[in-house]
């Protein structure tokens, strides 16, 4: 198993090279060093997420209401389903990776090739799913109004569904009553030199206010979580008063500045942590592809050991391990 270490001809001496403390080869040991330090990086991010969440403990967005979409199933609210699928894909690709390592121990080139290939496919599906998840999150769902204090007001109405009163969200497109506006986007070609302005929101706050006034059923839902663990829904009078006195900006979707789902820190951490994890998966796929070609070319066959597959496998499992925690703290807890 140790044929990667070149014999220096001084094997009887302690410092002659080729030593394996803790019975782990140099490469494996260094991979463990890296994994521990990377685990600390990720736990730093997740702990910072926890800090912000504890700071806004009574108004943090409820994940089940944010991530409700599944590809090809439009308009249905299916929380958890898609992310559960992603988790399963990643665990599955972890399994094919261990099977590749196991086949490597038996020096079975055919099987290592097959399992490495399946692992790469799993990784690609995961990264693709994550890209879709991001796109859905960025494009947004119903839209909302941001207040002067940076809070989010969402809209909806009570409907009777099977004899039950349910609060159903209404999209800002269905609320707004358009009016002619003279406000145009500021571009760097006119006005202040070399200063841009972000694209104007799809609607002005006045259009939303007029729309809410004209439909007496629309109510405002605030960020605050009540005793039942649900977001607070204001009465009709309070809704109008809140919207008129505090409403400032119409937002649709989420980015690093605004977030229609709730406090903007939620979107920041979502992009940062799942992005950092997605980058790990991406680099894992790239490393897996390199190893895959080495396997196909017979590099490890000639070397007499598939330990390289084992080392990249450690990294791949670590990515899976991190996802287990990201999954829990972003989608479940």
């Amino acid at each position: 198993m140790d044929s990667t270490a070149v014999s220096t001809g001084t094997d009887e001496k302690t410092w002659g090279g080729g030593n394996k403390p803790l019975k782990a080869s140099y490469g494996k040991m260094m991979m463990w060093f890296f994994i521990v330090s990377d685990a600390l990086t990720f736990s730093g991010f997740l702990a910072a997420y926890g800090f912000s969440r504890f700071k806004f403990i009574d108004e943090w967005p409820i994940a089940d209401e944010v991530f409700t979409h599944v590809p090809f199933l439009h308009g249905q609210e299916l929380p958890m389903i898609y992310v559960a699928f992603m988790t399963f894909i990643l665990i599955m690709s972890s399994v094919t990776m261990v099977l590749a390592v196991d086949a490597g121990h038996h020096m079975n080139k055919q099987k290592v090739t097959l399992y490495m290939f399946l692992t790469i496919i799993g990784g690609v599906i995961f990264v693709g799913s994550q890209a879709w998840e991001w796109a859905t999150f960025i494009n947004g769902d119903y839209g909302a109004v941001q207040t002067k204090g940076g809070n989010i007001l969402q809209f909806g109405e009570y409907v009777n569904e099977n004899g039950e009163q349910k609060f159903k969200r209404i999209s800002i497109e269905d609320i707004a009553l358009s009016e002619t506006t003279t406000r145009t986007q500021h571009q760097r070609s006119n006005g202040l030199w070399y200063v841009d302005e972000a694209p104007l929101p799809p609607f002005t706050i006045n259009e939303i206010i007029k729309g809410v006034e004209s439909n007496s059923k629309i109510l405002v839902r605030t960020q605050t979580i009540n005793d039942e663990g649900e977001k607070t829904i204001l009465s009709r009078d309070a809704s109008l008063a809140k919207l008129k006195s505090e409403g400032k900006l119409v937002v649709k979707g989420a980015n690093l500045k605004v977030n229609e789902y709730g406090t903007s820190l939620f979107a920041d951490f979502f992009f940062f942590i799942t992005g950092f994890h997605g980058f790990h998966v991406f680099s894992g796929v790239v490393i897996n592809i390199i190893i895959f070609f080495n396997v196909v070319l017979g590099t490890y066959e000639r070397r007499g050991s598939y330990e390289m597959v084992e080392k990249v496998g450690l990294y791949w499992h670590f990515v899976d391990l991190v996802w287990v925690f990201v999954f829990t703290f972003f989608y479940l807890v």
Partner: protein
Amino acid sequence: MAQEHKLAIFRGRWKFKSNTQKIWGVLAFLTFVTAIEVILGIYKPAFLNEPIFGMKGLNWIFIILTIVKAYYITWDFMHMRDETSFLRRAVVWTAVFLICYLVFILLQEGGYVFNVYDETFIKRDF
């Protein structure tokens, strides 16, 4: 060149004939745990929403199940079970100690900041 593998999980209660079989067994277990998490996450039984030791019962279940999953990924997929005990301890306890400390100080501070806005006259929302 077959390596030595320890072929039993759950403290020897579930034994396997080969390493490949053990991998599929662990996959079955991990899938089962994830399925429990997802089902609880969708239905959120009301009796688990009560706080136990300062946190919702449901959240305790999620976090404990996550650590269980992390254990089996590390022990069986990353072959920690087959490493020498000192390598295992050096990796696991270093990370566990530092992460527990980090999480404790940050969550404590986050709760404190929340209380400052909640109970005193400092406001961030006008």
